[in-house]
């Protein structure tokens, strides 16, 4: 059954009509809020006189003043360095463990694989705040069962919520929570490798270790890149763990990580303008770092392919 073809006068408009819902959603829930944050970051409040009563506050154009403030703020730089140190521990340990676990689960003759997989993945299902509270209780010297055991055994009891060990304490929470997720991503891509490849390797006399190093890891490289990419973003945005642990110790300031500073400025000190500028700076840095990494990783893979 054929219909006479109608004249296609609407053809030029059709794609846009189909695009409209997506564009609308994008504008409403993505572009507008970001635009508003940028607008806020370019303004500041000006107070007249004692600043009490009606009309005492006015929002005025600030130009880039909030940005120069944010970029010259030593506390923000220190926060960034702290997060860098934290990331230097979290990312290699977490991804290393995830890869090792994935390879082990994928190895032949593994018993109880599904149960183990679930057990490693389970911490990821626990919300970050709950995980931080849980670990916080375990870290606090006077209530920690670990400290009790160490004390009974006559071993030194380190205060994990102080100084250098604090980084380990925070990293541990992230590693504990994040390894499972990354392992699943890597494991899934391992399962996608066709059996013929292994068969060929076996015929060539590959040991399981050689298979892992020479075949599995190169093939799952894209998955590794992806998990690395996610981990960088998650690290730069570290917030809930240190915020939850902060009341428990004197060693965590309200500006420990850059995002904590944004939160303090906006909700502790009522200064949305400075907070917006800092947030925009953090977003830009995150974008540059994560996409920079992605680009570097991609170009390397491509080089590898042409070689």
């Amino acid at each position, binding site marked *: 059954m054929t219909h006479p073809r109608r004249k296609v006068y609407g053809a030029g408009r059709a794609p846009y009509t189909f695009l409209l819902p997506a564009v609308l959603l994008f504008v409403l829930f993505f572009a507008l809020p970001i635009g508003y944050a940028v607008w806020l970051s370019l303004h500041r*409040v*000006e*107070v*007249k*006189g*004692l*600043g*009490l*009563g*009606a*009309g*005492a*506050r006015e929002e005025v154009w600030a130009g880039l003043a909030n940005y120069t403030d944010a970029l010259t703020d030593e506390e923000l730089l220190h926060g960034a360095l702290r997060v860098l140190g934290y990331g230097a521990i979290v990312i290699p340990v977490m991804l290393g463990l995830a890869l090792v676990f994935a390879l082990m689960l994928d190895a032949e003759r593994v018993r109880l694989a599904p149960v183990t997989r679930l057990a490693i993945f389970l911490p990821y299902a626990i919300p970050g705040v709950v995980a931080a509270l849980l670990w*916080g*209780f375990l870290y*606090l*010297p*006077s*209530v920690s069962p670990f400290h009790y055991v160490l004390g009974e055994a006559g071993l030194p009891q380190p205060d994990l919520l*102080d100084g250098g060990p604090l980084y380990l304490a925070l990293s541990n929470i992230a590693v504990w929570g994040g390894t499972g997720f990354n392992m699943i991503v890597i494991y899934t891509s391992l399962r996608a490798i066709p059996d013929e490849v292994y068969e060929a390797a076996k015929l060539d006399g590959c040991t399981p270790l050689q298979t892992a190093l020479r075949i599995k890891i190169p093939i799952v490289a894209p998955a590794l890149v992806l998990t690395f990419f996610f981990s960088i973003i998650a690290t730069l945005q570290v917030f809930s763990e240190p915020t939850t642990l902060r*009341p*428990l*110790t*004197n*060693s*965590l*300031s*309200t*500006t420990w990580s850059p995002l904590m500073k944004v939160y*303090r400025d*906006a*909700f*502790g*000190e*009522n*200064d949305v303008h400075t907070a917006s500028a800092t947030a925009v700076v953090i977003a830009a840095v995150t974008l540059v770092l994560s996409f920079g990494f992605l680009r570097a990783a991609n170009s390397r893979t491509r080089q590898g392919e042409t070689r």
Partner: protein
Amino acid sequence: MPNTTLGMLRRTVTAALAAALGATTLAACGSSDDGNGGDAEGGPASLTYWTWTPGMDKVADLWNEGPGKKDGISVTVKKQASGDALVTKILTAHRAGKAPDLVQAEYQALPTLVSNDALADVSGEVGDVQGDFAASVWQQVTLGTDAVYALPQDIAPLMFFYREDLFEKHGLDVPETWEQFADTARELKRKAPDLDLTTFSANDSGLFAGLAQQAGAEWWTTEGDTWNVAIDDAATQKVADFWGGLVAEDAVDNQPMYTPAWNKAVNTGKQIAWVSAVWAPGTLTTAAPDTAGKWAMAPLPQWSGGEQVTGSWGGSSTAVTTDSGHKAAAAKFAAWLNTDPEALTALAKESGVYPAATAAQTSGAFAEPPAYFSDQADFYDKAAAIAKTTAPSAWGPNVNVAYSSFNDAFSSAAKDKSDFGAALTTMQDDTVADLKKQGFEVAQ
């Protein structure tokens, strides 16, 4: 922390704006609301009330069934988070012109809210209620002007709580001066090195502010159109050096309060005293359930013998917003809530509120001591007497900035057991810098 929710709720910081606030400048702001009740006289009104007080819905029901029904004024309670988060929420809602009719606000947040024009002057609507409150309390809601920006709800005078049994066991006397307090701390360390008299908590800016208030500090004052910030004045310096000294010589602990570790310390008698406010029984009930009945309360130690002065750690008020379409009706409810004997009894019973209204402090609701202090029959009589000795205090428009600076500066000073005076200077500098950045005139 989870098991000290009540303490967290009440650990809202109290304050009063200095008498020095330029009354003439401020009277002008107050007048803008004159004769602008915003609603038909006596017409029915449906009001929304943002508060963090537990059990407030039941108290509001009492109004809705009783006096409110007669006037057709009904109040709906919307439970909120306490503290700075609510201030931010109110200001954000006010930006959109959608703040609720009534809000609960800590005393020290009032200047910030007034400076954002979020609170209405209800002096014309609440009638003659000033006499129901102590002068030092009333002054906090007028900011020293002719306007009335809120009605005082609860107050929290500082006191000294101690383990009576352990004081006896170690042969310690209850300190009456801070000097004796320091000696007691040292004596305890000598006799029982594992125990601490108490801790200095860098998380609790409100307690530090209260202690400075007792010493006579006035952190924010005004002269004409100029703010004067004196966080590092001699009185506060004295308080900072005192606690810094105790921390440096290990006479008291340096870990924050309201942590699982602190709960354990007070519950097991590792810490045997606590400088806290009238709401302490509620906090101790959850933090140290095993030691109920073993604690006693005494007045706060004094800086010089024979004096009787205290500060505050907590306390809040009920305010009507400028966005309300029914300001007169809202003011009527606020006045009822905080002065009517029936309402105050309900507040004491349902919400555990220690009332700002003077008469209610000795009413039937406070005839019995709190269960936790069941052996101290005159607990509330003593409390009411101590409340009368509360020193005036001075708050400004960026208390929140000073407080977060306190958290960071004193945390690291307490951790390193270093000079608290330097931390105080940081707090002063941060506060002044913020005022200047916002465009306030600040005297140097």
